[in-house]
């Protein structure tokens, strides 16, 4: 990341000796994951009690469907940000995959199954281009993916112009919004959960996952411990592209419309959700559980406020404030704690 050394990473308040019994509790409460999960629970409870129709099955179904693209892309984005990079081109990749799916369906005569496979592969290729620029040429990912953000979005307009392809078979478009029989949970949540588990296991339980944290903390040190930094980052960008291909398919089928402007602006929401989930933009810190909770918190809050008749556009105040609070509060708390700690020590010395 370009902005790593201007402000030192917040120092975590040093562990206080002698706080024995409380230390475990504080460790639990102090972790950002726990804070976000707690906030999520509180918001869901308050919303169910006060907002009409929030707790209905139908609303839950729409809430989850709306969250799908955000949740899916947040998974690879988490890994990328942990390594200290960023991918701002995700929404444009979704758009390009969507229009290519439309164009292929319109003119190629291939079966939709084959088209879906092609689209995911294509997403992977788009991601590989990002990866090549970042790791092959050693360029900052922030600048590269701002470039491909424009490039891919432009190409998605080139593919379909301002037209939309909408005549997808009804059984396909119905399939993506169908709920699991007997519940109001959409079927598509199942592959999302599977993917989340895979990403979680890879990140937290494998050597490769630990290596991502090492890279985020110090590229060079990671290289010296035998981690192939460039190759790993390259494949992360490829995975990010492939997931965007999946999201492109989902987006196209859910709204039964392949358009050049699909998913415009989603990249900033994804980054917001990831940072809200406690992943450090410096790289090297964060957990997938927090990100999943962050995505849900963002989605639930928006959904509840929308049901409560708050203008959808004005809701961006909530998104922005949450993001700012999520980075300002932990630091402020750490500051206050450190100050209290110092004062207590001075008292101890004085007495």
């Amino acid at each position, binding site marked *: 990341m*370009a902005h790593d050394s*201007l*402000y030192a990473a917040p120092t975590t308040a040093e562990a206080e000796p002698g706080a024995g019994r409380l230390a475990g509790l504080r460790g639990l409460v102090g972790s950002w994951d726990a804070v976000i999960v707690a906030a999520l629970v509180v918001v869901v409870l308050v919303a169910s009690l006060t907002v009409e129709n929030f707790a209905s099955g139908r609303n839950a179904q729409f809430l989850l469907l709306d969250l799908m693209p955000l949740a899916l892309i947040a998974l690879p984005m988490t890994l990328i940000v942990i390594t200290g990079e960023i991918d701002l081109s995700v929404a444009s990749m979704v758009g390009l995959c969507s229009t290519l799916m439309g164009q292929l369906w319109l003119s190629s005569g291939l079966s939709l199954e084959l088209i879906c496979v092609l689209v995911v592969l294509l997403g992977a290729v788009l991601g590989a281009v990002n990866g090549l620029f970042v790791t092959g040429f050693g360029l900052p990912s922030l600048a590269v993916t701002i470039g491909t953000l424009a490039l891919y979005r432009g190409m998605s307009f080139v593919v379909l112009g301002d037209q939309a392809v909408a005549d997808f078979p009804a059984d396909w478009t119905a399939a993506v919004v169908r709920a699991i029989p007997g519940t109001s949970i959409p079927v598509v949540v199942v592959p999302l959960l599977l993917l989340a588990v895979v990403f979680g296991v890879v990140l937290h339980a494998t050597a490769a996952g630990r290596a991502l944290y090492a890279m985020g903390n110090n590229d060079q040190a990671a290289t010296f411990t035998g981690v192939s930094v460039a190759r790993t980052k390259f494949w992360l960008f490829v995975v990010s592209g492939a997931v965007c291909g999946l999201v492109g398919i989902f987006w196209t089928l859910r709204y039964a419309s392949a358009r050049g402007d699909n998913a415009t602006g989603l990249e900033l929401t994804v980054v917001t959700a990831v940072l809200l989930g406690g992943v450090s933009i410096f790289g090297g810190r964060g957990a997938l559980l927090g990100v999943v909770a962050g995505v849900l918190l963002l989605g639930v809050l928006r959904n509840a406020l929308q049901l409560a008749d708050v203008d959808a556009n004005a809701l961006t105040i909530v998104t922005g404030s949450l993001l*700012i609070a999520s980075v300002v509060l932990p*630091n402020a708390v750490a500051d206050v704690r450190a100050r209290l700690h110092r004062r207590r020590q001075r008292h101890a010395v004085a007495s």
Partner: protein
Amino acid sequence: MSLTDAGAPERTAGNAPTDPGRQRRSRTERLLAVRELSLLIALGLLVLVTTLRNDRFLSGQSIKDLLLGCAILVILAVGQTLVIVTRNVDLSVGSILGLVAFATGSLFLSAPGTPWPVALVVGVALGALCGAVNGALIAVARVPALVITLGTLYAFRGVDYYWASGRQINAADMPPSFLRLGNQTVLGVPVLFVVALVVVAVVGFYLRSYRSGRELYAIGSEPAAARLSGIPVGRRVFAVFVASGALAGLAGVLYAARFGTLDAAAGTGLELQVVAAAVVGGVAIFGGSGSAYGAALGAVLLTTIGSSLAVLRIDPFWQQAVVGALILAAIGLDRLLALRVAARLRGRSAHGA
């Protein structure tokens, strides 16, 4: 052309020799100066090709439209240069522009008699206030500006939507003297563009010739070293965000004057275009190098591409793709130049030792 600042050698040199001969400095300067030159050449070629295809591209009206079209982007890109040079980024400029534009319209709506200079001052002050919010939050949170300004991008835009609540302000609500500001010309040059030129000149001169301007490059090159050498890093960064906000506010007022019709969505998505203009203009995203002139030329180039594609009868849908390709080419070129400079310095150190 010695417009560029030679902030890069310190970065690219790495563990290069410590004999900062004048020769080395002049050579890197020459190398870096190529950026403004190459931008001008690209711009000239683009205009030439387009004019050969359709000679009305260089007619008075067309040029006027072009200058009018790029003025706002130029102002924003110059503000962004100040920020990026210090190794930060301000993603909230599009939202600040939107908020200030709507505020300007509302001011005229609620107080119809307001003279336009008052509106201008109010707009710039509001922009500076937004910038101060950014700067203060960054100082408190000690996190990269990317995160904070991403947050305020949403927050300012949300405030804008909340305030507007679906209303639209039309040209009829604004005084004619103010709207004339957006279309009037001085000696054939649009007033808007003159304002942009003044901004470019002032910021360019400041960055190049003022002590605090040079300190911004030092901060961007190596913040820790800048702090150790006694530069008030926190204060400078705060000031830079206030300046960027104020310039976005100025752009917002001009936006209102130019377009007349305002809703809460004005300037949405502009931030990435602004960063793109700066990057194409040779402002390194890592900070420490680049000039206001380059960024302004980058903004002009991006705008010109848009209008010449239309003249060349190339599908306008290609425009964004071309811009993206240009960004990649620009940062690739920067990287190549930096590597060559580094290699040359290494070669010389081996020779000298």
